[in-house]
């Protein structure tokens, strides 16, 4: 408020400084700081309940931080109402999938175009030529996303009946339709099998490289993490545990202890039974 903002380093798209959130007695996020650089894939990992999703919720302004600040592209996010976040170019997916259940896939994706609408209420109600043009344009953009994610098949199905994996993709698509600059993905691969996870990895890489979108993601699948991320931040109990390249973080003893676990070979399970 009083002190002028210090301009962030040019390559940081998002900066979190000492953010903390407390829910009753639980310190869900405790003095966490990190930068997400333009164009990178930045991953948050950490045991369950470490506060990763809470960080996402802070960025998308669903929660307000108890202390600390988040700046996005030089702006203080705390000043933005939640619905403004999307028009700043931040889009997200949800851990538990939050789609518009009783609308078709196409409509879901079109809703993703909301921040880009150019017609007002009166134009809509009269369906002026401008509104018609805007509709068709939105549809074209959405079709590009549909092609990108191979969703042609499901275009007109109601979301309510889709299998889990497809919903995940639809949600990704919806986020992409907003044409974000920063994409927050909460566990993009959970519930997907190996093959589908692989598709997801390709998509994330395409999103980063071809579309030039910065990605911040939470993920538990370490093979996916090491494959796509540029940098990784490990959290535990709301605090930062380690940060660095995927390899560095995976080797960090604290991370192994709290997150990866020490049993190396899953076949140990088998031997016990046998």
């Amino acid at each position: 408020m009083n002190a002028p903002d210090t301009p962030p380093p040019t390559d940081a798209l998002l900066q979190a400084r000492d953010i903390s959130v407390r829910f009753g007695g639980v310190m869900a996020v405790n003095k966490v700081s990190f930068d997400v650089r333009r164009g990178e894939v930045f991953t948050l990992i950490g045991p369950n309940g470490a506060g990763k999703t809470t960080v996402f919720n802070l960025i998308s302004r669903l929660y307000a931080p108890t202390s600390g600040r988040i700046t996005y592209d030089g702006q203080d996010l705390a000043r933005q109402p939640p619905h403004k976040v999307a028009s700043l170019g931040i889009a997200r997916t949800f851990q538990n999938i939050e789609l518009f259940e009783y609308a078709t896939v196409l409509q879901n994706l079109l809703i993703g175009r909301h921040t880009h609408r150019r017609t007002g209420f009166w134009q809509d109600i009269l369906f002026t030529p401008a509104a018609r043009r805007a509709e068709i344009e939105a549809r074209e953009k959405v079709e590009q996303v549909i092609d990108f994610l191979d969703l042609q098949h499901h275009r007109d199905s109601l979301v309510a009946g889709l299998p889990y994996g497809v919903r995940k993709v639809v949600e990704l698509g919806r986020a992409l339709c907003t044409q974000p600059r920063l994409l927050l993905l909460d566990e993009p691969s959970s519930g997907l099998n190996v093959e589908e996870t692989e598709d997801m990895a390709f998509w994330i890489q395409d999103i980063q490289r071809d579309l030039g979108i910065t990605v911040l993601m939470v993920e538990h699948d370490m093979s996916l993490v090491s494959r796509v991320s540029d940098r990784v931040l490990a959290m535990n109990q709301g605090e930062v545990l380690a940060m660095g390249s995927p390899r560095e973080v995976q080797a960090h003893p604290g991370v192994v202890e709290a997150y990866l676990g020490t049993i190396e070979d899953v076949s140990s399970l088998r031997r016990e039974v046998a």
Partner: protein
Amino acid sequence: MRFLFKTSYAQDIRLARHGGHVFWYGLLALFLVAAPWLASEYLLSQLTFILIYGIVGLGLMLLAGYTGLFSIGHAAFFGVGAYTEAVLAGMGWPFVLSLPLAAMLAAATGVVVGLPALRVKGIYLGMATLSFGFVVAEVFARWESVTGGNAGKSVNAAKAFGWTAEAGAPFYYLCLLLAAVATLACLNLLRSSTGRAFVAIRDSEVSAQSMGIALARYKTLSFAISAALAGLGGGLYAHHIHFISPDQFDIIQSIDLLLMVVVGGLGSIHGAFLGAIFLIGLPQAISAVKDYLPAAVGQAPGLKAVVYGGVLVAFVLFEPLGLYGRWLKVRTYLQLFPFYRKGMFKRQKSFQKSDRLK
């Protein structure tokens, strides 16, 4: 069975999807325009009522069916429209000015009610609107200098530019015109970004918000449009019924309006009008058949309530999608004949989930 080959995106946003639509809706329009010659005076008056309630139903459908906000106080907006129109018409305003003003005033009231809607959902919103309805009804009763209080108020015929929309065909055409315009406006809204925003709010507020939809703005907007349509309907109602009093805009009326959209079929524009047909037609149907019943039943007081309630219960039980749902089934049956399979619309088991968390 009809197959549609789509060749452009524009096809998807057209109102009439194919020739059949054009034909059937054209026929309907023709019938409606010709109605004064075809229908008896009595039927025409009923038809006028149906159009008026249809307009109100459209508004409530938008609010309840598309935005997912249930209002149990819609009679308040209806009443604001009716009283505004009655007062203005009494002052000799032409209806081309007074009707829009009635709608706007109702919309303004709608915005006021929309405000708590930003904070509460579900049953709490229902109660907020219900309470608001009571307060407004009390204002109608107490503000005697304007509303005539409980003694009621007579309403002049609608006039403009020296033309009087007399009861019967002229007024019917006025209603028909406005109903058509209102329907078109709603259809337009629903196929554009505003309508999608409503649907988004209905299905998930959290993700609507993160898609950049300003909940406050769209919820209030939805309330405003809905109230405006109710106000417009109210204005027409006032003219049609000639006499308005506060007890015409009480909780019973609100519930009737809600029943109308539910029976019509939540989430469909057709439903608004089908529901209106039901609301106006059923009591008439009951009094038509009651003479044929044994006197002990047919002449007993309370019969109307029993049948009315019974039909409502039957609807919810057997046709949760309302009249429109029934119509869809019939249509599919005809289209697919003879390939229709019995299980096609078999109801799936569904499981209730708390809507306290949305």
